[in-house]
């Protein structure tokens, strides 16, 4: 700290901040902090090339017809017009995505939070084991396929076999082709695998809280654990909460792989068709990259929007 102040004093400033334009001032500050910018360059190059670039590019393609083999043709807003006015399946997929997001997003978020909170109460050794158990489904990639075995459509599948044995059904249920069953099943599986990175972040957050604060709070008159959670624990881990929220929003909107793996692509009568599926359908199967880009742009916008919303909500924590 002391050194910093010394450096700051030694720097000569010919003009005051108020004498400069915004641009001038920014430039000046950049020059002053140039080592930091140099260190950022490698990351920014990769970030621009592989993340910003594609986003911008797909925004551009969304105004074209592009079949991946020939040069794109600019068609203005027609992709968007078709998307909103002439594509029932897109609307269906928006509906499905919202259902998925609304159910799995908050539920998995709060599940992560509360499971982390409970686990945090355990002795350290047991905590490590239990953490691994809860985290395991999300690290071991395709492990949700065991649900496919459990609910196999074959009469020898576990659930079908039991139901047949108990004479509840007479023919095997095609669980992943049976419309009423597909969505709930996929949601359950999604929740099962959702205790992922955010869950770990929460555990980390919980452990960094200064114990002294709890003591102080107790002296200040906290009456129960709920108050302690709301007034001390959560405000202390706002960063982790935000991180967890972003993760769970993106994953619940980008939800698709599990449905494809379990129910096939596309799902029976599009009953579990999400925006991501719609995007894959047009981009991968129909070679309509322009249209697929338009879908991607919409998805991007929805995600940004919900992130802003969640940010607003989180700022209310502890108040």
């Amino acid at each position: 700290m002391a050194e910093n102040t010394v450096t700051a004093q030694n720097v000569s400033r010919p003009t005051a901040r108020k004498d400069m334009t915004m641009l001038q001032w920014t430039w000046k500050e950049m020059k002053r902090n140039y080592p930091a910018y140099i260190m950022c360059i490698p990351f920014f190059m990769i970030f621009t090339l592989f993340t910003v670039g594609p986003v911008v590019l797909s925004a551009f393609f969304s105004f074209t017809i592009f079949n991946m083999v020939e040069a794109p043709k600019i068609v203005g807003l027609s992709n968007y017009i078709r998307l909103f006015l002439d594509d029932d399946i897109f609307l269906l997929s928006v509906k499905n995505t919202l259902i998925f997001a609304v159910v799995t997003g908050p539920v998995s978020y709060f599940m992560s939070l509360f499971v982390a909170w409970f686990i945090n109460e355990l002795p350290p050794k047991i905590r490590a084991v239990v953490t691994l158990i809860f985290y395991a489904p999300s690290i071991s990639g395709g492990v949700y396929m065991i649900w496919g075995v459990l609910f196999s459509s074959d009469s020898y599948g576990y659930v079908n076999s039991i139901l047949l044995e108990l004479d509840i059904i007479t023919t095997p249920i095609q669980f992943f082709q049976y419309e009423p069953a597909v969505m709930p099943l996929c949601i359950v599986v999604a929740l099962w695998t959702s205790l992922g990175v955010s869950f770990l972040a929460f555990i980390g957050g919980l452990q960094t809280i200064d114990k002294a604060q709890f003591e102080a709070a107790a002296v200040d008159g906290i009456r129960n654990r709920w108050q302690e959670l709301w007034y001390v624990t959560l405000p202390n881990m706002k960063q982790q909460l935000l991180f967890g929220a972003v993760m769970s929003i993106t994953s619940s909107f980008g939800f698709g792989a599990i449905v494809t793996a379990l129910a096939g692509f596309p799902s029976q009568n599009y009953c579990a068709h999400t925006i991501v599926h719609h995007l894959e359908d047009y981009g991968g199967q129909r070679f309509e990259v322009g249209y697929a880009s338009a879908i991607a742009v919409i998805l991007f916008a929805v995600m940004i929007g919900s992130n802003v919303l969640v940010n607003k909500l989180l700022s209310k924590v502890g108040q």
Partner: protein
Amino acid sequence: MKKTKFAAMLSLLLACLMVSTCVLSVFAGDVSDRDKTAQIVSDTVKEAIEILGDVKWEEYSLNMTTPNPKTKVLDYTMYSGAPISVNIGSAVYEPGVNVDQSTLSYQFDADANIDGVKCVITPESGTVTWTVTVPEKGLYAISLTYYDLISKSTNIERTLRVNGEVPFNEVRNLLFTKTWADDYKPENFADDGSIIYDIDGNGNERRPAKKQTPEWTTIDIGDPTGYYNGMFFFALEEGENTISLQSQKEPMAISDITVKEYTRQITYAEYKAQIESKYSPAPADAFIKIEAERTSTVSDRTLYPINDVSSAITSPQSATHSVMNAIGGESWQTMGQWIEYEFTVDQPGIYQIDARYIQQKIEGLFVSRRLYIDGVVPFAEANNISFEFDRNWQVTTFSDGETAFEFYFDKGVHTLRLEVCYGNLGKTVSNLRSLLGEINNIYLRILQIAGTEPDANTSYQFYSRIPKDIKRIGEIAKELESVAAEIEELGGGASSNSATIENVARALEKMAKNSEEQIAKQFTALKSHIGNLGTLLNKLGGQSLELDYLVVRSTDNTEKLKAEGNFFQKSWYEIQRFVVSFTSDNSSFASVTEAGEDAVKIEVWTTVSREKTPLIRSLVDEDFAATHSDISVNLKIVAAGTLLPATLAGQGPDVMMDVAQSDAINYAVRGAVLDVSKLDGYDELAAKFHYSSLAPLTVALGSANGPKAVFGIPQTQSFEVMFFRTDVFAQLGITVPTTWDEFYAVLPKLMSKNYQIGMPKSLSFLTTLIYQNGGSLYTNEGTTISFDTDTTLDSFTDLCNFVNLYSCPITYDAANRFRTGEMPVLFADYITFYNQFTVFATELKGLWSFTTIPGTVRNDGTVDYSNVSTISCMVIMKDAATRGTAEAGFEFINWWMQDDIQGEYANELIALLGPAGKYNSANYNAFNAMPWSSSELIVLNELFSHLKGYPEMHGGYIIPRYMLFAFYATYNNGAVPSDALLEYVDAINSELARKREELENGNDTSRSFYIPADSLSQ
């Protein structure tokens, strides 16, 4: 015995079959091929009846050598006396039913002459019979001298009949191996006699080609299945007897058949006493090393030198390149396969033999080899040379486990042959196999009573309905336990092998515990147990062994051979390999020969697996490079999705292989693929294909009658056939249906016995039904779907009814259910399932077959057997035309699809992958060169003649999607099939129209694809 009862049943069944065959032939539209196929099908069922009635050698030999219980004397005595030669020229030939003699590779000739040896040529089909007169009624052994005529790369197979009957099951499929040798050119031999292998473009040694080197071989007829050692004996009557060989596969010449005294092999103790009394040990320095990859002859094309990288001291070894340094492994594991070595002994005397090997296939047990020295098994124990399991390389001296065997060699050239057999495991495995057969039969009988999912609370009356079977279950459990104990004893402890068997024994024990409920409860588990036992048998049947070298050395030579290198050798080797891994490129298979400056360079991409690519490469090097010196081919393996981005970036290939038909059209309509029909030589090439394989790639431009364009050349073709279990049909006494009417008549019979049918639910199967009913998939020249026509709606209703009315399962594990027999009829892709099942269920050999899918009887009485096929193809990218390499690319395709190259490739695949390597070339002419049996070829010929193409239009991806939606709607919600399908007509049509509008390009018709008007009539 039960044989009489069986005979009665048999004759009854035969009568049924004959009547039904007659009925069939009335139905049949086109006479010859159809009739032949029907005949073959009924023959296979007949054969299944015979197979079911066969006794085993063990039972046969026991019956023959124990006194008759009534007369208390032996019916047959062992013959002892001089060998009796059969007059070989007296052979009588009876051609196979319906086999066109002109298609055979060799004609029957009773008076042939090969290399000055008088012999009889027996072709690959038909039966040849000899008459032999013996002085007394008795038991005789038979020996035979044969010559493996040059033909396909598969073993010769014959059924032996004595006096018209197959005496026991083991001689039903007698194997006669062929003789193959590495095809070396003079420049491959170094001065010291060792081999210099050819080098490929990456500096790696290439395995030599194999050629058949026919020779005269004399064998005593013995067990081809590897369970029993020594020769068989056969009961002959006094006076005239007939011995016949019925051809199953491949032609062969026979110069001598002798009936003779049955002799047992001498024991090692006797052998040792003989040699020790006469000879002294070889001098201590006698040491002959035989590199295992340097074979003199082998029994199979598949036995080629391989590259072992697992050990630093495998000789020779190189860390930088792949060198030929070992032999065997997976390709040397089937009963009867042998490898023979030649070596020269300078100092006569008594020797021992060592081997350096690795055996990591059969955990906790050993694999066995039968040792022949100079063509004979020297003593009985040489039948059971064991190679123990270990994850590392080992060195062993040939022994019986305790004492090392000693052999006498005189001065001169000797041969040493190792043949795959079960050795000491033979009896155990044979027991296990017959127990499995019994369990399977009991399983099917319970299935017939109680269905696939028996209810524990229902009284099925098992005890009064199948009392014998129930009693037998308990006995089998005990026998299984003793088999498990034997395996534990042989392997020196409990292993996963014995545990598998014990599990089954426990389940059976529970079932036998006098409780109906337990039978029902254990039943479902029994099915998986049957599967496990079968898998175990397959595993034990795969006696795979990898050899590095053999050493023939003096008994006094005590120098210890090393099993594995020391720490430094190993480390140095691994370090080298690690470093080299950064520089070697294994995805590019560049040409060996440097093409000239003016040669056209073309780039060919393929998506086949990396083990198959070298085959293509070596064919290119050996054949294409020789005939097309002006074209140089660069072959690359790529991942399937690479083509699109590569084309987009302008980095695509000239020729892409293995393209799905839908992709070919999708790329074509976007202008990425060249129309090959305008290229020189297209017409001659196209004539090689059945039109069904060209149909998906052929479109009319502008309108259905517009000019045609063809976007690719077919490469492989697949289609569904009807697989059936001949034994189930034989037992139930029903004929294999050839029309849907018959099929519907058979269905209730199978269902009443709780059997299931494996029906497909795919769009291609629906299209098959539509074609059979005279409809088409698309209407209006390919612009709309036919889902609103009566024909399609009827066909779809039929398809749904299989599931909804006849309770055919939608999801099922085809191979397992077909194996247990609960699904005796199965519609599946001919090549995939055939390959899978051949290796998956070896115990069912001869008990299953395939035929055309049933046909539809049209109003005029003819039967339509149309069957839809799908293809993969090779395309020329449009970029090639701008680069000027299109013609060269077409030359390559044209060469690749020629009969001989496709045949060669198919054979190489079998050499590489074994029996599961059958290849579904789209060039039907190439099938004649592949190792299919003559009856299979007839059925395939018939199948090909009915194939129809599955038309491909842009936007076609939407059709299977909505068809399945409609299909599941009928199953899940009980919707009426036609209503369910009609609901999606508009959605499909609007997608097709939208896609057409998107891709059409104004007045330019090159993007306006229509289905050619004449496509269905061809």
